[in-house]
């Protein structure tokens, strides 16, 4: 069950080009939220739009939770101008979460899709689960370089300005060479083309793969039916309610790669 909490901004900082991390004091939601889940944010008190803005939780620390976002429009601009102590109305935790770490996790984030991957990384670490982490971005200054990360972390840039030159698929391939693929599982979140590429890769190589999708959301709680994704057609041809289309906010945001028709929503 999700709840609504009036949180308080405890801090904000720039972590990469046009990318920010804000922390919110939200004891109830922070105590419930699991890696992969998201919150739905009312960016300001006099918010002129009709939808909240969904954001993955990137981590928790005691009573605080954090989010990582790119400034792309009105909502994220408002977040960017949050001052310490501001009240922010949030609903959460929402959606499903990363689960089943029995196979070796390779966790892969691109762009701001890194947020739920960071959270996952920390969850795995505190549970002493060995894993690989790959962070992709287009260019060096989009990377959150100062984040203090342990070994088994690969960074890629499309333009080669930092880390491995190329995209995350290439990086996964590198790691995968030394691994038993049937005992490996991919956890992916990032821009649609990256997720689509990872999906194709996972299907081709027959690797288990969970992908966190993103789409526009009005309610975030399964009411409006606006956040639909399309499933790969099921055996049973009966086309009925929520057999053909899933709801990213409720049935997701995390779906199995083999269930997803397309990551472009």
């Amino acid at each position, binding site marked *: 069950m999700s709840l609504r909490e009036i949180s308080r901004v405890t801090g904000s900082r720039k972590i990469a080009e046009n990318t920010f991390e804000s922390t919110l004091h939200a004891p109830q939601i922070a105590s419930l939220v699991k890696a992969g889940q998201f919150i739905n944010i009312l960016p300001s008190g006099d918010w002129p739009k*009709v939808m909240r803005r969904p954001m993955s939780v990137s981590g928790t620390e005691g009573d605080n939770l954090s989010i990582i976002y790119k400034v792309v429009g009105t909502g994220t601009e408002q977040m960017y101008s949050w001052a310490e102590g501001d009240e922010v109305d949030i609903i959460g935790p929402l959606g499903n979460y990363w689960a089943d770490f029995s196979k070796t996790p390779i966790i892969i984030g691109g762009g701001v899709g890194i947020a739920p991957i960071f959270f996952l990384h920390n969850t795995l670490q505190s549970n002493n689960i060995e894993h690989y982490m790959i962070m992709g971005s287009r260019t060096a200054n989009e990377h959150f370089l100062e984040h203090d990360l342990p070994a088994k972390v690969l960074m890629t840039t499309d333009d080669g300005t930092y880390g491995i030159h190329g995209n995350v698929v290439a990086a996964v391939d590198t790691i995968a060479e030394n691994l038993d693929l049937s005992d490996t599982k991919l956890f992916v979140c990032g821009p649609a083309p990256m997720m689509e590429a990872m999906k194709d890769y996972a299907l081709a190589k027959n690797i288990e793969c969970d992908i966190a999708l993103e789409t526009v959301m009005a309610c975030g709680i399964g009411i409006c039916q606006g956040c639909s994704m399309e499933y790969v057609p099921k055996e049973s041809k009966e086309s009925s309610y929520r057999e053909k289309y899933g709801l990213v906010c409720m049935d997701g945001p995390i779906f199995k790669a083999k269930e997803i028709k397309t990551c472009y929503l």
Partner: protein
Amino acid sequence: MLKVKLGDITFASPITVASGTYGYGNEVEGLAEVNRLGGIVTKSVTRHPREGNPLPRITETPSGMLNSIGLANVGVEMYCKEKLPFLNELKTQVIVNIAGSSMGDYLETMDMLEEADGNHIGYEINISCPNVKEGGMEFGVSCEMTEKLTKEMRRRTSKLLIMKLSPNVTSITEIGLAAQDGGADAVSAINTVVGMGIDVEKRCVKLHTVFGGLSGPAIKPIALANVHKLYKVLSIPIMGLGGIASAEDVLEFILAGAHMVQIGTTNYINPNIGVDILQELEAYCTENGLKNILELKGQLNS
């Protein structure tokens, strides 16, 4: 102070929530005090389950949103099995919204609901969904069809019968009169306004179905105009809706002639908006010495 009657039914307040924006009441658990609302109108239920339209289905617009959900819903059988038990537990009044593609659809759905063991006190009939080819719009734009459907339904139920009207017509009052002549207890106005959005970057439409329904504060002036027009010609009460986001908005609708109101899109921002509003309305009544909020109904000074 907020108590209102519609037909024989008493509602704790005129504040209800609109179809498609509140699910079946269970989704908001923990986020809203459902039982404090005057009532809830369920998501449209159809004869058979519907998977809904292909995506994308929603997009934001200035002070509003477009949707083309396509009446995605569990269908009446599953509704009776899965949704009804929870709804029966509610202490607020439940109105079941019915949609259909043909007269048979509508009537069969109603028959099944009449037979089911539901505590719902009435039906709202969606003859105005602009988002599916057979969303009932052929009913909503025709006086004859509206009257005929209303009559058939009236014969089948003694529960409240509310026809939900479309603003996408030259004259909403003609359709409203047809519903009244058919025996409806009330009309609700308005459903969404037909609109469209284009993604310039991708050079494609923003909704897979091309056209969708516009809702939210952007349409409030349109909704008020329709409610007021209906108020001037109908003798049955009106449930007003379209863009309500505050207690002041509710007062606007009541002054325009609404007997009750529904809150739609704003639930997405604040699932408890209905309760927030009714608290404000109580305070308003006290401050303004109103014994009942409906003393204001249609009371526009000139």
